[in-house]
C-alpha cells in the first residue's frame, strides 16, 4: 500500500523510542496511558509496541471497540429479530459471532435465519431494494466513525421511499466515557491516546473539556506504528511536565473542528440518549437514538418481538478489561473457556477486542 511503509520505518521508530526513553528517564513511578480505540489496541499488539516501551510507561486498553461495549440485551434483540419470519439481518461481520444470552447470530444463520454480512449500510439499502417483500434490519453499531454513514443510509432510504429498511441502533459516542473513566478513582489514567477516525468526525477540540476539567493530557493519534510512538512521546512529555493539553499528532487527517458535514447528518437523524456500555453500565448522554421524525426507520419502534432476559456469563471479566483495570491474561476464562472460535465475552469476538488481540498476537 502506498504511503504506509513510511510510517513503519525502523530507523525513525528507533529515534522515537530513544526520545521516549530520554523523556521518562527521570520520571518517578509508572505512567498509565490509555488507548481508547480498538484499532489502536490492534496496532499496538500487531507491531509489538508494548515491549519496546520503557518500564515507566504502561499502556492499557479502553472501551473503544464498538462490538465489545455493545450490551448482551442488544444482541438478544437482534437474535429475536433474526428469528422473525420475513426478516433479513444486515450487519458488519464481527457482530454475528457475539454471544447473546443463549445463542448468536452465527448460530441463528446456521439454523436458517437470513443474516447477511455487509461492508456498508448502503449495501444493506441495496438488499432492501432487491428484497421488497422482506424487511431488512441493519445493526447500527459503532461510534461517530460509522454513525454518519448509518444516518446517511436512513436519509437515502427516505429519498428512495424504501419502507422495508430499518435500523436497530446501539450507536455510542466519544468522549463521554473517557470522562467517566477519568473520574474513576480505581483507575489512574495519566493520558489518553485519542481515537483517530472518531476524531476525524468530532474534531480534536472535542477533548478540550476533558483535558481542562479532568486534567488529563489528550493526544489525537494515528494508527500506524510511528503515529502511535509519536503519540506516546507527546503524552509522556506532557505527563512529565505536569501539563494537560489537547494535542493533535494526526494532523494529516484530523482537524480541530472535525468534519462538520458528517456531524450535521448525524444530528439530523440521531439525538443523544443515555446508553448502556457492557462492563461499564449506563452513561448519560453517551448513545444515539433515532429521532422521532425518522421513527419509521427505527426497528425498535416498528417491530415488536419478545426478547429473552439478558444473562451475562458469570466468570467473564470483559467489563473490567474494557475499563483497563484487568488485562486479558488475568481473566480466568482467557484461553481456557474463552477462545476466538468459542468466545464467551465480546472482547474475544471482535477483531478489535483486547482479548482477541492478546490471544492472536500476545507472546
Amino acid at each position, binding site marked *: 500500500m502506498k504511503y504506509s511503509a513510511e510510517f513503519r520505518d*525502523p530507523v525513525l521508530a528507533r529515534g522515537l523510542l530513544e526520545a521516549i526513553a530520554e523523556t521518562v528517564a527521570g520520571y518517578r513511578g509508572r505512567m498509565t496511558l490509555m488507548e481508547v480505540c480498538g484499532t489502536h489496541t490492534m496496532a499496538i*499488539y500487531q507491531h509489538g509496541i508494548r515491549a519496546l516501551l520503557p518500564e515507566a510507561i504502561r499502556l492499557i486498553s479502553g472501551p473503544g471497540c464498538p462490538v465489545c461495549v455493545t450490551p448482551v440485551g442488544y444482541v438478544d434483540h437482534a437474535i429475536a429479530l433474526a428469528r422473525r419470519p420475513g426478516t433479513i439481518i444486515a450487519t458488519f461481520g464481527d457482530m454475528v459471532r457475539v454471544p447473546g444470552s443463549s445463542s448468536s447470530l452465527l*448460530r441463528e444463520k446456521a439454523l436458517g435465519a437470513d443474516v447477511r454480512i455487509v*461492508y456498508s449500510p448502503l449495501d444493506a439499502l441495496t438488499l432492501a431494494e432487491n428484497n421488497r417483500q422482506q424487511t431488512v434490519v441493519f445493526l447500527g453499531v459503532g461510534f461517530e466513525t460509522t454513525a454518519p454513514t448509518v444516518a446517511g443510509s436512513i436519509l437515502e432510504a427516505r429519498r428512495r421511499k424504501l419502507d422495508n429498511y430499518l435500523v436497530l441502533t446501539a450507536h455510542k459516542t466519544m468522549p463521554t466515557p473517557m470522562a467517566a473513566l477519568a473520574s474513576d478513582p480505581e483507575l489512574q489514567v495519566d493520558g489518553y491516546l485519542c481515537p483517530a477516525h472518531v476524531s476525524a468526525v468530532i474534531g480534536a477540540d472535542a477533548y478540550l473539556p476533558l483535558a481542562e476539567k479532568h486534567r488529563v493530557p489528550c493526544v489525537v493519534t494515528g494508527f500506524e506504528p510511528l503515529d502511535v510512538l509519536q503519540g506516546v512521546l507527546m503524552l509522556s512529555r506532557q505527563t512529565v511536565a505536569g501539563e494537560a493539553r489537547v494535542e493533535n499528532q494526526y494532523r494529516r487527517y484530523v482537524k480541530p473542528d472535525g468534519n462538520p458535514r458528517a456531524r450535521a447528518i448525524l444530528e439530523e437523524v440521531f439525538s443523544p440518549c443515555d446508553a448502556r456500555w457492557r462492563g461499564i453500565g449506563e452513561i448519560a448522554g453517551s448513545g444515539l437514538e433515532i429521532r422521532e421524525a425518522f421513527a419509521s426507520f427505527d426497528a425498535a419502534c416498528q417491530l415488536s418481538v419478545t426478547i429473552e432476559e439478558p444473562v451475562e456469563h458469570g466468570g467473564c471479566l470483559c467489563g473490567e478489561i474494557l475499563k483497563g483495570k484487568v488485562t486479558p491474561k488475568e481473566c480466568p476464562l482467557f484461553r481456557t473457556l474463552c477462545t476466538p*472460535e468459542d468466545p464467551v465475552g465480546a472482547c474475544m469476538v471482535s477483531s478489535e477486542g483486547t482479548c482477541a488481540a492478546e490471544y492472536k498476537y500476545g*507472546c
Partner: protein
Amino acid sequence: MKSDVILLGHGSGGKLSHQLLDDLIIPILSGIATRDQNDAAVLHHDGGRLAFTTDSYVVDPIFFPGGNIGDLAINGTVNDLAMTGARPLAISVGLILEEGLPLADLQTILEAMRGAADRAGVAIVTGDTKVVPRGKGDRIFINTSGIGVFDHPLEIRGSGARPGDKILINGTIGDHGMAVLASREGLALESDIRSDSAPLNGLVAEILAASGGAIHALRDPTRGGVATTLKEIALQSGVDITLRESALPVGEAVAGACAILGLDPLFVANEGKLLAVVAPEAAEEILALMRRRPEGREAAIIGEVGAVSAGKVYMATAIGGRRAIEMLAGEQLPRIC
C-alpha cells in the same frame, strides 16, 4: 458456547476445521494423529510409495480474475501431491452440477481444467457427473482426487522442520483470496488483483532435483493463509518459527484491499504458493532456483526456524517489535476455493 451445528467457519481451514477433523471426522473414519496430517497420504505398496489426495472446490464466484473453479480444482490437487515431493500422475474429476448451469460456462470450466492438467503434465483419467435440482447446489461443485509417484527416496512432511532452517516462499501472499473477494457481488472493490492459481509440481521437481536432501518440509498455504500453514508446520515439527515482517512479499493492491477490509494478508488464501523449509546452507541456492521460474520470480526468504518448542510462531515486526502468530480462528472469507 460450542456450536452444535456446522458453521461456515468449520470450512475455513483454520482452528474450527482442525477441531472438526480431530474431534469427529478422523476418530470415526480413520484414526491418524493430527501431527501426521499432510497435504496427501503416502501409501506403501509392494516396496514402493504412492501419494494420494482429494479436494473439493466450491469457490464463489466460479469465475474470478486469474482463473476459474476448473483450473483451481486441478492446480489444488496437483499441488497437494507435489507438497509431499511426489510427481503427480493422474487425476479424477467429480462434477456436481446444478440444474440450469449454462453449458457454455461448463465448457469454459472444462477447458480450463484441461489446460491446467496439460500445464502440470497430469492426465485426467476418470470421473463422474451428477446433476442436482435448481436451488440444491450452487451452479457447480468439483471434486478432484490425484495420485502421484516418487522418483526419489526423500520424505517430505510437515514434521520435518529443524532448528536453524530457513523459510522460503515463491512469491507474493494473499492474491487468490483477495482476487475472489474483490470479484464478489456486492463488494464494489475495483482492483487489478489476480488469483495466483498455478501448478507448483515443476518448481518442486526442480528444487528437489537440485538439493533434495536440504528440503525438510513443503506446504501450500491455501485456506488459512501463510499464518495457519506455518503454525501447522511449527506444531507438527515441535519448533519455533520467526517470520520477518519486512521480508514478506505483499503486492501493493492486496495490501491496500486488505487494509480497507480489515483483513490480514497472512491469513488470506493462496493457490500458487508454497512454503519451503530448507537447510540454511542451501537456502540461497534454492531461492535463486525459484527466482528463475515464472512462478517464483518474487520468491523470498521470509523467516527462520528457532528452537525446539511447543510450536510457537512469531513475527519480528518492521519497527523492531515481536508478536505471536496464531491459526485463523473462525472464517475470514468463506468459500474461497
